């Protein structure tokens, strides 16, 4: 067991849902497919902070063609009045996108609300093409349909953390993905 094994963490987290090996296999598959599809093209991969960090890092290293990477961040909806209002970028891209082939990379797509906003924002910058790549697709609660060119895993109706995915900013540094079941008694 390494230092990020489930036994080191509070009781909220359940069994391992996706192991490091399973994740790496999916990342390798996606990387090979993206390398083939974008060969000879000016590819810019855009990630949204912070959840995508680990997936983006691994996916980039699985890609065998020249690629540029950039990140953006958006305000997150939350419980306080300060975190309500309207979604907006809190960190913009530094790379221009016009005429380039853009691949938006996300850790998980659930309702599609965030992805819809980001794709709409990126499309306004007139890329030559715009596609989306997601590690985890949980479409049970999809509100806004989103076309996904690359999907790592289809997952069922469970809450997961690890490998960048958080619950209240915790658990991102797990090497794998686990089912998360909040401890109701701790509230």
């Amino acid at each position, binding site marked *: 067991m390494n230092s990020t094994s489930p036994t080191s963490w509070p009781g909220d987290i359940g069994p391992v849902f996706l192991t490091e090996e399973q994740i790496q296999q999916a990342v390798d598959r996606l990387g090979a497919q993206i390398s083939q599809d974008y060969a000879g093209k000016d590819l810019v991969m855009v990630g949204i902070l912070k959840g995508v960090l680990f997936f983006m890092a691994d996916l980039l290293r699985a890609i065998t063609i020249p690629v540029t990477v950039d990140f953006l961040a958006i305000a997150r909806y939350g419980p306080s*009045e300060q975190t309500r209002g309207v979604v907006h970028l809190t960190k913009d891209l530094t790379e221009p996108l016009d005429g380039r082939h853009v691949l938006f990379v996300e850790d998980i797509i659930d309702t599609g609300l965030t992805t819809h906003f980001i794709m709409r924002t990126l499309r306004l910058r007139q890329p030559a093409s715009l596609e989306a790549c997601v590690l985890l697709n949980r479409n049970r609660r999809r509100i806004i349909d989103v076309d996904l060119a690359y999907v790592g895993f289809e997952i069922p109706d469970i809450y997961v953390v690890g490998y960048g995915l958080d619950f209240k900013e915790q658990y991102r540094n797990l090497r794998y993905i686990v089912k998360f079941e909040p401890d109701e008694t701790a509230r």
Partner: protein
Amino acid sequence: MAKSASPRPGVAFVHPSEAEFARILDFYQIAWEYEPRTFELRWDGQGNVVEAFTPDFYLPEQDLYIELTTMEQRLITKKHRKLRRLRELYPNVNIKLLNRSDFKQMILKYGLDDDTSLIGQPQEQSA
């Protein structure tokens, strides 16, 4: 309580979860209407409507109706039956049901899980 106040003047939501859902849609700049249409589902021998269904939200840009319920799973049989009937009678209408589990996952995601008013009390069956 400011938190449960309607996010849109003039719109009175039946349940706090609906107001929160409207705020989430507003946050992501998704246009919505609240209970804009009632679908007639059954009629008596005289043609009077004896059963109808009014979905909570309509998203015009997606042409999508959304029914949001925080009822326990075991209590939503009637709602499922109404949805099936609606889909039979109005096959071109797109409608999605977000149930208690779905909404619970959403409030977990947005860190709203400490607000028990959103989901703590199962919603009375309606619509």
